[in-house]
Structures are given as C-alpha cells and as structure tokens.
C-alpha cells in the first residue's frame, strides 16, 4: 500500500488561543517495500502526521490516501473502512510499553488479535501469538510471564508484538528505540529490517531523532520542519545537505561531518553516509595516495 499526502494541514485547538498549526501542507509519498525514516526537530509535526495514517486524526485540509482509501473523503462508505484501515496500518506509539496492561505476555499480545480477528479459533490465536513473539525475538519462555517483570527492551518488543499480531501491512513506529540501551536499539532496528525483508510487513515507517541510526537503517527519509516536508530522498540525497540539516536543528551523521571536514582539506570522498561505505571509501583513498 502506497501512502500519498498532498498539502495535508492540521491545526490543534483551532478556535482557542492555544491554536497550534501542527501540519502546514505536507506533501509526501511513501512507497511500499521501504524502510522509511521521518525526522525533524521536536514539534515539527512528525507525530501529528503519522497519527493521520490510520485515521486517529481526521484529515482537515488537503488529501491523504493510504492504499485505495481516500481519507479526505468524509462519506459513510469511507468511514466504514476505518476498521480495515486500522488493521492495515499498525501504530506503535512513543514508549508503547506504558500501554501493556494484561497479566501475562500472552494475554497482552492476544488482545489485539482478538479485536481484529473475533472469529478466529483458540488454536489460530495461539499460533499467531507464538509466531509474532518469535518474530520479535521472544521465545515461548516469556508467554506466561508478567510483562511488568521484563526488561525495558523486552517490554517494548512485547508492545510491538501486540500491534504486529494484527497483521498490518504498514508498521508505523514513533521513536521506537527511545530509552533503549545501545544493544537493544541495534537489535530492534535489525528486527524491523528482518520483518520488512521477509515480507511480514510491507512498509516500516519510523520516527527518529538519531541521524546515525536513520542513515544506517532507512531506505528513504523525509525531513519535517514547521509542519512541512522540506527535504526527502535517500539518506545520501538528504544528508549531503549538511548546512540545511544543521539549520533544521538535526545535523548529519558522524560520517557526514567527517566528509565535510575532509572536503575542507581538499580530500573529496563520495559516500552514502553509512559507516561501512565511509570506511571502505576512506581506505580506498588512503591506498591510492600512498
């Protein structure tokens, strides 16, 4: 399912003095089969945008289509398709582990499944829960544990499993690695990549503040500022604009900083800003001049 937004705008508290223009004309296409990064300064509209994707925030102005569902269309026919939309677009909020509520990991994950597949048998439910937890790297030993007894990284995996079990095509995650330790961060990003590569989901959309992480993991990036998309493309296309990225309060990955500093010394290397590519190109340069 492709996501196409055109001139999407949204204002919070429209008629009060607390009015905030959160989106001011977002135009953006997110293709299927991509690991898509959404970055931007705090308050740039990232979270407001993604909440539009499964209809949590109704389209106020502009257009937005998710697959063949036109969310700007307020007719009853479209309203009836919201449940379908929510089954296709899985949403993982900031600190999703705060939403864990059941007594066991199994019950917590099964909750979402029962909501979306009310006619499924116990057997099907069990299979779906076990499979999903396994996809998130959690073995059968966790099934009967209380989610509250797990570590931060494990809790978050359970929370994501609770969304994934509803079999969404698009998985949207708002700052999925905030608060996780470095190993937990890397593992979770890797898991998301595996979900995409194995076709478990067709699109992964992550909101992030970490340029290095975005650069290492995402295929495409959109940069939000003041409620608009100001830059978009591959990480290479986006991060080459180091001056703009700095003005947008984001900066570039460490590799981008190094490329710029080397360039000032007349050392030009063409990199895609991933660490491996940077190391390869620098080593190549070194060998050539030696």
């Amino acid at each position, binding site marked *: 399912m492709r996501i196409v937004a055109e001139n999407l705008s949204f204002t919070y508290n429209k008629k009060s003095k607390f009015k905030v223009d959160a989106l001011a004309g977002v135009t953006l296409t997110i293709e299927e089969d991509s690991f898509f990064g959404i970055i931007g*300064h*705090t308050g740039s509209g990232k979270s407001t945008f993604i909440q539009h994707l499964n209809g949590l925030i109704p389209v106020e102005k502009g257009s937005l289509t998710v697959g063949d569902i036109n969310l700007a269309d307020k007719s009853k026919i479209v309203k009836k398709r919201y449940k379908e939309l929510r089954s296709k677009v899985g949403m993982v909020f*900031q600190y999703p582990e705060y939403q864990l509520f059941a007594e066991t990991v199994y019950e917590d994950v099964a909750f979402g499944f029962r909501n979306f597949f009310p006619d499924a048998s116990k057997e099907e439910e069990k299979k779906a829960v076990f499979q999903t937890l396994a996809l998130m790297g959690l073995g059968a030993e966790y099934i009967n544990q209380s989610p509250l007894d797990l570590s931060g990284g494990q809790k978050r995996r359970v929370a994501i499993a609770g969304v994934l079990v509803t079999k969404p095509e698009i998985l949207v995650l708002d700052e999925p690695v905030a608060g996780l330790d*470095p190993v937990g961060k890397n593992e979770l990003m890797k898991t998301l990549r595996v979900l995409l590569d194995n076709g478990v989901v067709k699109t992964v959309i992550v909101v992030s*503040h970490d340029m290095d992480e975005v650069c290492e993991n995402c295929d495409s990036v959109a940069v939000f500022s003041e409620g608009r998309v100001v830059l978009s493309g591959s990480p290479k296309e986006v991060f080459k604009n180091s001056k703009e990225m700095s003005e947008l309060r984001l900066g570039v990955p460490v590799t981008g*900083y190094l490329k710029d*500093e080397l360039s000032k010394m007349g050392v030009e290397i063409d990199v895609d800003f991933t660490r491996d590519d940077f*190391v390869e190109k*620098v080593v190549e340069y070194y060998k050539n001049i030696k």
Partner: protein
Amino acid sequence: MQAIEFKNVSFSYGDGDSRKEVLKDFSLTIKKGSFVALLGRNGSGKSTCAKLINGLLIPTSGTVTVFGMDTKDKSNLFEIRKRAGMVFQNPDNQQIASIVEDDVAFGPENIGVPRKEIKERIDYALSVTGTEEFRHSEVARLSGGQKQRVAIAGAIALLPEILILDESTSMLDPKGRKEVMEVVRTLNREKGMTVIDITHYMDEAVEADEICIMDNGVITAQGTPNQVFAQKELIAKCGLELPVSAKIAEKLKSAGLPLPEGILTKEALSDKLCELLRKI
C-alpha cells in the same frame, strides 16, 4: 563533603518469590561539583540508583547520604529533595499543571520561594531550555520533545545543587539535546551543580568528567571517558557500545589505517583523518 554516598547499598523490589534484587552491596561516591555519566543496559539498576538518591526509594540495607543526610531519616527528605532535582525519562510522569509556566512554577512554590523570585526563576529556566515561546501553552498539547524540555525547566527552576537526569534527553532532536546538555554543563561549571546523567547516548557520556558503568546491580567500570571506553570488551559485555566516532575509528583501524588509540569524538577523528590523508 561528598555530594552523594552509597555505602554497601542493596535494594530489592517485591518480596517472597517475586523478590528481585536490583542493587547488590553497591558503593559509589559522587564528589560535589562533578559531572558523572551513569551508563548500563536496561535493567542494570541505574534508575533505581537515581530514585535512591532523593529518597523515592529507601535501601533494603546499607545507606545513601546526600550532603551527609541519610535518606532513611524521613525528616531529611524535604531538604534532600530541595537540593537534589530529578528529571525522569518520560515527561508525562512529572508534569502537573496544565499551562507550562504554572508547571515550572510548581517546584519553587512548593519549597516556599518568594513570589518575585519565582518569576525570575521561571524566566531563567524557560530561557535556558528554549521553552519561552511555550510559556502560555498547554503542556498536554506539546510534542514529546517539548514536554521533555519543560520537565528540565521545572527541575532547573528549583536551582538544585544536584541534578539527576534519567534519560531526560531521549526524545529531543540532536540540536535540542546539545543545547540542553550545554545548559547543564554551564550550571555545572559556573554554579558548581553536581550532575548525574543517566544516558544511553555514548556520545553524550563522552562529555562527562567521569563515567560509571553499571551491570547487574554493581559498578563494573569507573573512570574518565578515555579510561572507560578503552575497555572495549567490558563495554560490549555490559550491553553498551563505543561512541559512533570510536566505532568508525575501530573499523578504519582494522581495515589498516594507522590511527591512534583513544579517539572518542568526531572532532578527534576528523583531526586524525585530515592529518593522515592530507600529508601523503
């Protein structure tokens, strides 16, 4: 006098079968005016440490003292909390008022700061955290990162002698994180505020005077950033990693580039790389 002293502290959550020992005979001294980064994987006991400092938790055994005051003695708690401010990981856990300036004023009002001074403190706290423009906004309508800045402003308005940041910059954009850390650094240098920064950002930890690594309820390494990050195996064993620049430097070294040990920052790596690639 030391700012904070943990002496043989043990702490467990729950009891009976569900008892979980988080800190085990844990000792740590934090000097007044120092800037300490506390690192460790999720579940290693860092946040428990933070809560023991201002008496939100009381040790199962051993003692925690703040400026010589034992946290076990309830009559000390008001004074301890006045002097040791804390910013939690999720700002939603500590915001009380509906409007930003009221929220920032809550702390100073509670400790009985005169009205005129409260206003000055709010102005100061909002200005250094870059939240002036939200002064009259509703807290609930701010973004995650904006709320986090307001939470930090609320702690700064208390002018604490000790500031404990528990993953308090996790939702900020890179520049925002840098700005907040600069403010904290300035308060540390100019006012002698003791800072304990619990973080998962290794690049942030590099800026501290001292790093403590916790794993499984004990301290596994302590020293300057250079001393600690030189212990590569231990870092990996504790579920951590090197700062990004150090990781790149390691990769370059193993690919045959003659780079020195101890590169932790992007500035240091850039200097060395420019030197190396230019001179030939």
